[in-house]
């Protein structure tokens, strides 16, 4: 005797095709909220312009290794725009779009990659987690944050992002399992940009989707075109509001593409075809949203020039602030290790200060 005891499916969501045309019959309200879409578009342009600037700084020796977010702008900003300030964000290392939306400053981003811990002392939501380099570990921190909100009966949601590569790590899967076990207000975004440094998505596993990892623990799981801001925002909004209303955690796979090297220390031409990258450019999120706004008569070249000028100016201010930030000083190595410096570190601090004299 055999009987089906459980069945599942994963849905894929998209509203804007790669040429910026609305597809499908059910046109969401957001597609007509041009004020919102324009402000999002502006942030997307700012994010990308900042990204180029950061790479330029690195190339001229003014910044350390930097992980670009080129191509991820829609996906990242959709996460920001679907969250509330009191929600908690646990980022990976290239989530500037989300972070800029939430209030982290460009200066802070530069400080971090410029080798200065003060970058992680965000002016953005003070409870958000810092950039997380050990892949996937942030997912469990987010689960912990969600646990706090649940235990305290606060209507807050924790949101975290992990890559297609990172989705293979046990931490993600344990976070998914914890979300199920404790019914946590948690949304785990798998940012599938097709590459984990030189390892393509297809080598992480042979499953059709990465979203289905959520099904393993019975979570709501969906896939979305991450280069379509409208679809991404709506899918994220739904997942976050489910979590907020006690309807459970979600795993959202956003399909996007890493349009440049993994970091400035990488050379992607060693391992992937130019043709693939060129093809991917045709789906990139900013042109797509611009085309849509233009087709709706909401955007034009003049507005674009004005925006570019404004953006260049704010970035300029941020870069100056970064470059003018004085050294953190020797004592800073010691002062934040503990709330109160233990005797052994006190002695080492004195030694270090004396040595520096």
């Amino acid at each position, binding site marked *: 005797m055999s009987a089906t005891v459980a069945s599942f499916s994963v849905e894929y969501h998209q509203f804007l095709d790669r040429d910026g045309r609305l597809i499908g019959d059910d046109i969401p309200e957001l597609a007509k909220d041009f004020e919102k879409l324009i402000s999002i578009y502006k942030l997307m342009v700012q994010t990308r312009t900042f990204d180029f600037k950061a790479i330029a700084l690195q190339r001229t020796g003014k910044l350390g290794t930097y992980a670009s977010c080129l191509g991820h702008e829609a996906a990242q900003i959709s996460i920001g725009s679907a969250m509330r300030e009191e929600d908690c964000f646990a980022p990976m290392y290239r989530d500037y779009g989300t972070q800029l939306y939430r209030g982290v400053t460009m200066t802070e981003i530069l400080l971090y990659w410029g080798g200065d811990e003060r970058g*992680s002392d965000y002016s953005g939501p003070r409870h958000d*987690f810092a950039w997380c380099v050990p892949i996937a570990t942030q*997912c*469990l921190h987010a689960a*912990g944050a969600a646990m706090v*909100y649940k235990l305290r009966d606060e209507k807050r949601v924790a949101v975290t992002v992990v890559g297609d590569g990172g989705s293979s790590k046990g931490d993600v899967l344990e976070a998914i399992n914890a979300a199920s076990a404790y019914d946590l207000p948690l949304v785990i975004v798998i940012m599938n940009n097709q590459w984990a440094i030189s390892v393509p998505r297809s080598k992480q596993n042979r499953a059709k989707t990465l979203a289905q990892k959520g099904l393993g623990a019975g979570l709501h799981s969906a896939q979305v075109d991450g280069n379509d801001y409208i679809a991404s925002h709506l899918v994220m909004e739904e997942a976050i509001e489910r979590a907020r209303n006690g309807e459970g955690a979600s795993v959202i796979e956003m399909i996007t593409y890493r349009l440049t090297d993994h970091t400035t220390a990488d050379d992607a031409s060693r391992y992937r075809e130019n043709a693939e990258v060129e093809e991917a450019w045709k789906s990139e999120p900013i042109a797509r949203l611009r085309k849509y706004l233009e087709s709706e008569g909401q955007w034009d070249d003049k507005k674009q020039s004005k925006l570019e000028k404004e953006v260049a100016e704010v970035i300029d201010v941020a870069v100056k602030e970064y470059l003018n930030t004085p050294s953190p000083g020797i004592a800073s190595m010691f002062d934040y290790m*503990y709330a109160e410096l233990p005797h052994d570190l006190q002695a080492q601090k004195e030694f270090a200060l004396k040595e520096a004299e």
Partner: protein
Amino acid sequence: MPKVAMVEALSLAMGSELRADKDMVIMGEDVGINGGVFRATSGLQEEFGDLRVIDTPLAETMICGMAVGMAAQGMRPVIEAQFMGFVYAMVDHMISHAGRMRHRTRGRLSCPMVLRMPFGGGIHAPEHHSESTEAMFAHMPGIRVVIPSSPSRAYGLLLASIRDPDPVVFLEPKRIYRWGKEEVEDDGEELPLDVCFLLRDGTDVTLVSWGAMIKETLEAADKLAEQGISAEVIDVATISPLDMDTIIESVEKTGRCVIIAEAARHCGVAAEIAANLADRGIYNLLAPVKRVTGYDTVIPLYRMEMKYLPSVERILNTVKKVFAVS
């Protein structure tokens, strides 16, 4: 006041702080209705409910990673690894996050959590239930490592660990969980997390130890007294930060030091103490600094484990050596 064993004192401390601090929660495998496999959390879920004393899925990385997240968001998780042999899946989150949270964010976020676990051998337990790898944690910046060796020190040190604003690894010598009962007043008084405890005054040799080996060390000191050798016994108690001043002061007086540790010798905590003596204490030494430790082997299954663990006899033989040479 009735006398209690160490494991009961730990339970008292956790109960006391659960009562005092609504942000404290306990999480771990079997910590709830079962009260932990050694009963250290016995009765706590009954008193405080399953939102304060929380059973977890069987996933150590999850427990530790979530605790980091919870601590950073303002709670005080006290988590348990069921045995030290199962803590290794927690190492990543301890070293990469717990010990770095405050430093990384310039104090914006911090990580006031406690990771408790029973450790050490000598209870005839199965494989992986007898580990002593405290050195691994002692080497991690940003983390305190605390080891009690009596019921009252267990009580006061655990309270201080829970209240400490930074992460603490709290290692419980399970071989003496039920040894050396004492009257422990449940008065909420904590003990300092940065000093050694002088357990016995002496003038001829300093015996330094921690955890369950304190038992054999005190016995050895008794035996030495019978032989006319006056041994000072120091319980290190907090292996990070390590209070070398007290140890060096003692060696200034005795001129001799033997360090007793259950862990494997190579790169263990005993080495750190000896290294400090080779530097700051060198002019006071009348004899080589000797270590009595476990061997650099896996701790064997229980038929042979007592041959692995330092015995009173091994301590006495070693002390004999530091007198032979002067």
